[in-house]
């Protein structure tokens, strides 16, 4: 491990109508939140396919936040309930995959709740910081003996082929 402080990389999927505006409000109101979150604006929390979340983790994100309008207040009537159910599915699947619960979070934030969103971001960053880096692609690496073993096979075959019949 290096001596540098771990700065979590968080991907945030924020809905256009409530949560993204909450982030905007936080900005105009000079409310501070950690710069660790990279916000992606989606039209609705119901637009967030589980593929996006898995893709974020598979490509090195340490945490993911999903944010949408409060239940019952969705701009698209009830699509945030879809987000709620996908989140529940993802949570149960990801816990089986060994992912810590605190790395994925769903929050509701209305356009007026800049303060609440900033606090939720702060909390998620703190929780992920405590968990440490995720670095999922490292899970796919085999140890150094893999290449050695491959070379051994090639060498032994070459030697075996030299044996006179």
């Amino acid at each position: 491990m290096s001596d540098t402080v771990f700065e979590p990389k968080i991907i945030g999927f924020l809905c256009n109508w409530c949560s993204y505006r909450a982030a905007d409000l936080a900005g105009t109101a000079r409310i501070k939140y950690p710069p660790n979150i990279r916000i992606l604006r989606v039209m609705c929390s119901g637009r967030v396919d589980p593929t996006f979340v898995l893709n974020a983790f598979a490509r090195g994100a340490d945490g993911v936040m999903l944010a949408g309008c409060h239940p019952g207040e969705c701009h698209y009537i009830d699509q945030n309930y879809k987000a709620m159910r996908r989140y529940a599915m993802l949570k149960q699947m990801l816990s089986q995959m060994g992912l810590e619960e605190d790395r994925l979070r769903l929050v509701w934030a209305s356009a007026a709740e800049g303060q609440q969103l900033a606090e939720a971001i702060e909390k998620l960053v703190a929780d992920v910081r405590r968990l440490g880096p995720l670095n999922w692609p490292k899970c796919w690496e085999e140890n150094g003996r893999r290449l050695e073993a491959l070379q051994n096979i090639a060498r032994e075959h070459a030697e075996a082929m030299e044996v006179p019949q």
Partner: protein
Amino acid sequence: MSSPAKPKLALYWAASCGGCEIAVLAVNEKILDVAAAFDIVFWPVALDAKVRDVEKMPDGGIDVCLFNGGIRTSEQEYMARLMRAKSKVLVAFGSCAHEGCIPGLANLNNREEVFNTVYQEGSATLPENPKDLRPQPETRVAEGTLHLPVFYDTLKTLDQTVEVDYYLPGCPPEAEKILSAVTAIIEGKLPPKGSVIGLNTTVCDECPRKRSEKKIKKFYRTWQLIPDEETCLLEQGLLCCGIATRAGCGALCPQVNSPCIGCHGANNGVVDYGARMMSALASVIDSQDPVEINRIIKEGIPDPVGSFYRFSLAASQLRRKKKPSAVSS
């Protein structure tokens, strides 16, 4: 038997059950047509040809190689690389080579855990192992050092190991699909490189069951109910994967009252099979209460990874269970 004009065909298997090899033979007497059209140069299951025969061939000396099985050991990786180098067209043949299939579910464990199950707790494979013997990649004997293949922590698909030209889906691929793919190769009627040779639609499109609006309050496991034979199985609460699965089988399982388990893998345009399943199922659960939603999922889908990634865990975006970062040997 071999005339110089005949294209050379090879078949090889890695981490698989052997079902794909049987599927090749299930083309019945048509195998004679295949044998007449191709010079089969390497097929360990059926022919006495040696790896060294392949090693002696020039690169690209084989026209088509049907490679089934995932990559679990160093020996399989070596063979994948060898067959890639020697073949003009390398086909990931069947679900294991394509998406990892059932052997890929071992990606919920690592090598140590797999070995514990097989050599320590496993009663079927090895009834007694009081000395807790494990396969060693290296053994020194008087004559020198002997090597066994290294067993990997993570099963990889063929295209995570070497470049693949085509994919033939299915567990196993249906005999007629194999024949039409092989015929297409003979006639030079191949789709663009990197294609899955198959239909571009879902199992639902081939399923004759009646479909209406789906609203699910409870998921059932197959042993918990005898489904009505005409209504969509998913609407009856069975976890039918037809909605996300590539067609081509003719909806075999739903036609015998059994839900689709997804062996043909993801349809074109689907990045992550399990994510597609989760997305679709989340849309049909009939509840807006987080507590109830959690209960419906927990009770009805006790094994989400096994249900959504039964055939495709190794090919999914996450590929395996999280490894503790300290574990490295």
